[in-house]
């Protein structure tokens, strides 16, 4: 019996969005009478934290703390159109729409504040804590609470904005395939270290070191959630998962979580995550979509590590103990 060790590397990029059908998302922002901000969308939170991120994006743009923003999303009677949550587009597309809407609302807010303070709107700035200050003369200020009250009850203004982000449809050119299917690209490089039991074909992923470049970590803890969970799913794809274990034979498809294999809490690789930020030109505060690409590089990195360990290539996913055993036997048979 031998436990053999190997390591492998993989590097990838990943596109944001799906422009081959046109890629729009809209957002509306308005202030309540006391200066809280309602973001209305129809984007879907799958658990990745879309609501929280839209709140932070709106808050940053308006200039208020995040807890002054309320997200009302995914009610088609109220929320304007969103293409959907997929293709790593949520943060990027909806975020841009929210910024545009929030900017318009902010402009109205500053105009009302300017009237109250009897200065030009262009001379005003927000302090991020809920106040509007005169640039260079911060003692001259008004709270956003008071500005909203004024807008509603005194000045008859709607502190609101409309946001629209559309990547126009790209039609692939028939002969050359020239097309623009997406916008900015995220990047990753993963090094995986494995142990392979050469008598059973069992693979243990010891460590994965993932470097991800995601444009901008809008909320680092939430980015970490995505990347850690994605890295786990990548390993899972590499070694465990399929609904058709004997593909293309259609039999023996798993029907529950006992038969559909994924790494359990006792199978976790020691996971390191390093994040780089090269802001994208068109992303909200430079953000790209990290949600999908984070699960990709582990698959080839693990595959390459298995080869490094035992000298057989498994070019069919998932890399099961059975496939490794068959390859090792074929190798031994020469």
């Amino acid at each position, binding site marked *: 019996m031998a436990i053999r060790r190997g390591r492998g590397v993989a590097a990838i990029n990943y596109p944001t969005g799906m422009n081959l059908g046109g890629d729009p998302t809209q957002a509306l922002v308005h202030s309540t009478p006391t200066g809280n901000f309602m973001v209305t969308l129809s984007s879907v939170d799958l658990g990745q934290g879309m609501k929280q991120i839209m709140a932070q994006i709106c808050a940053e743009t308006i200039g208020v703390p995040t807890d002054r923003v309320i997200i009302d999303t995914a009610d088609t009677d109220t929320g304007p159109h969103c293409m959907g949550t997929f293709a790593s587009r949520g943060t990027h597309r909806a975020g841009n729409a929210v910024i545009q809407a929030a900017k318009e609302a902010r402009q109205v807010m500053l105009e009302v504040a300017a009237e109250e303070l009897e200065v030009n709107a262009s001379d005003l700035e927000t302090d991020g804590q809920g106040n509007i200050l005169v640039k260079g003369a911060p003692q001259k200020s008004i709270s956003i609470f008071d500005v909203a009250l004024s807008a509603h009850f005194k000045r008859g203004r709607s502190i609101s904005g409309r946001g629209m982000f559309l990547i126009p449809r790209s039609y692939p050119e028939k002969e050359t395939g020239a097309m623009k299917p997406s916008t900015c690209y995220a990047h990753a490089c993963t090094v995986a270290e494995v142990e392979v039991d050469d*008598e059973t074909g069992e693979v243990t992923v010891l460590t994965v070191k993932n470097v991800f470049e995601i444009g901008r970590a809008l909320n680092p803890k939430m980015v970490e959630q995505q990347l850690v969970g994605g890295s786990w799913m990548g390993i899972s794809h590499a070694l*465990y998962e399929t609904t058709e274990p004997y593909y293309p034979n259609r039999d*023996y*498809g798993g029907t529950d979580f006992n*038969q559909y294999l994924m*790494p*359990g809490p006792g*199978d976790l690789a020691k996971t390191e995550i390093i994040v780089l930020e090269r802001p994208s030109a068109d992303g909200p505060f430079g953000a790209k979509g990290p949600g999908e690409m984070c699960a990709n590089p582990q698959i080839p990195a693990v595959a390459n590590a298995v080869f490094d360990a035992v000298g057989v290539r498994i070019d069919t996913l998932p890399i099961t*103990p*059975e496939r490794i055993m068959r390859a090792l036997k074929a190798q031994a048979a020469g």
Partner: protein
Amino acid sequence: MTLALQTFSTVKDANMALQAAGTRYLGGGTLVVRAANEGDVSVSSLVRVTEPSLSAIAVSGGETRLGASVTMAAIARHPELAALAPAARAVGGPAIRNMATVGGNLFAPAPYGDFTVAMLALDAIVVTEDGQVPIQTFLAGRDASRAIVTGITFVLPRAESFRFLKVARVKPKGVSVLSIATLLQRAADGTVTSARIALGCMADRPMRARAAERALLGCRLTAEEIAPALAVAGEGTSPITDPIASAWYRNEVLPVHLGRLLLA
């Protein structure tokens, strides 16, 4: 028709009710309630028994009796059943172990039924109202069995003579690629004087590895001496193919895992 549960205080009464068509016995629920949830409409009536003896554990000397409703969790935490704890803990996660019973495990199709593999290695006796049958006989006829199992009896093994291994892809709680239980008696010089080896997933229900058992007699537990036993470990097996592993793979790694268990 809806699903209806009937509760009886005695096994005798429940056995009567169980004769009706579409009726099944409810133990811990991990098999029959699941089947009902999944749309198995062949079951319209469930029967359960509250008789306390079904949940009793009795250990006296080596003689052990587990009531059919004893759960895996109860076995795993019972101080006198420490030798069986690894087999009991091999079943499911914590919640399942609080529900899954000794009786139910006897009926669990591969890849389930790890605890029964241990019982088979111990040559347990399965007890019903109709009498007592060796576990191997019981397993062979379990599909047609109608009488409620009330308990199981066996001689508690000494810890050093009994070994159990469950091989799973997912840790700590995957279902079995295979499971192995061995009960070996050895002479002072270490040679095996008697061997019982039970296998899970190597057929549609737990089975004995008779050829390997015979080949182990007179061997010391060294890699060299057990090699002939490992070579015949797969004799008579007919492993399941399922999403976890193919029959080919199970046969391929059975000798490896048996060898590791014997040499551990």
